[in-house]
């Protein structure tokens, strides 16, 4: 676990919030959800630290669906978690869960678009 924390902190030194902000710049929302899910997966770091970044993204105009995809993608699987999970449950389990997580996260983003835009529930 100590190795995981060290790895997450080391990698977060190379991934800046500015890199993530580009997600919201003129990208189709559905594609944005897929990209946000992927970025969430590869973005390392303690999730507590990322919440201020999420707020910053929202203030920068990023929609709730992309935020949901980003948060969900990040919390479901991130690099150090993937390695820890592999250690406990094996490669096959982790790879299958990664694939499943990608599908359900994109689904969650699309559901959020539906609720926000068509049902009218202002979740943010």
């Amino acid at each position, binding site marked *: 676990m100590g190795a995981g924390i060290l790895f997450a902190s080391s990698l977060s030194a190379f991934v800046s919030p500015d890199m993530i902000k580009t997600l919201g710049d003129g990208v189709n929302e559905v594609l944005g959800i897929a990209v946000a899910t992927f970025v969430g997966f590869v973005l390392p770091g303690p999730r507590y630290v990322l919440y201020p970044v999420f707020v910053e993204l929202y203030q920068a105009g990023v929609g709730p669906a992309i*935020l949901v995809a980003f948060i969900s993608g990040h919390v479901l699987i991130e690099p150090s978690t993937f390695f820890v999970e592999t250690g406990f449950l094996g490669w096959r389990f982790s790879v299958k*869960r990664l*694939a*499943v997580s990608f599908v359900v996260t994109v*689904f*969650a983003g699309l559901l959020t678009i539906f609720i926000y835009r068509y049902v009218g529930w202002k*979740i943010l």
Partner: protein
Amino acid sequence: MEDSLEKRGPLVSMQVRMGILVLLASLVLICISPAGVAAKLRENAGVNLQVLLYTVIAVVISTAVHFLVPEDFAQKHLTKNKLRYLLYATVFGIMTPGPVYAMYPIVFSLKKKGIRNHILVSYITGQTMIGPARISLEVGLLGFNFFMWRVFLSLVMGTLAGFLYYVISRSERDDLQEISTR
């Protein structure tokens, strides 16, 4: 159950190998940017300590699970191929406190109890989606509505994730059929 116990040895050695691999990767990153990594480590020191504290709590929970969940409970309820157990596992996951690293001893303990992988996927999804420790952060920074929506989503996503895992795991599905015919 015997299978899972036999696999314990290789799993432990794999943990050691993965730990070494992650440490080596970290060392490479530190060599590339020692100042940047040092700054991030200082910046995240409090959170990392918090993670360690939650890990201790989670180990206590995993020990409690080991003693409180009887062998036949897992066989009677959680190895049956019923969709509602995916929802139960998701709810159980949502209620489990602690960081994601600390959850894996619990998951490993449940696996040793005979709980199937698709149920574990629902549990992991529920646990990672909503953590009790993150409620204050999420409600405080993003609002109550957003948090409630995420709670609802976590129930849907946990159940769906377990179901999808079940669908793509052909060999595991065969195992389940074998169990249900006994």
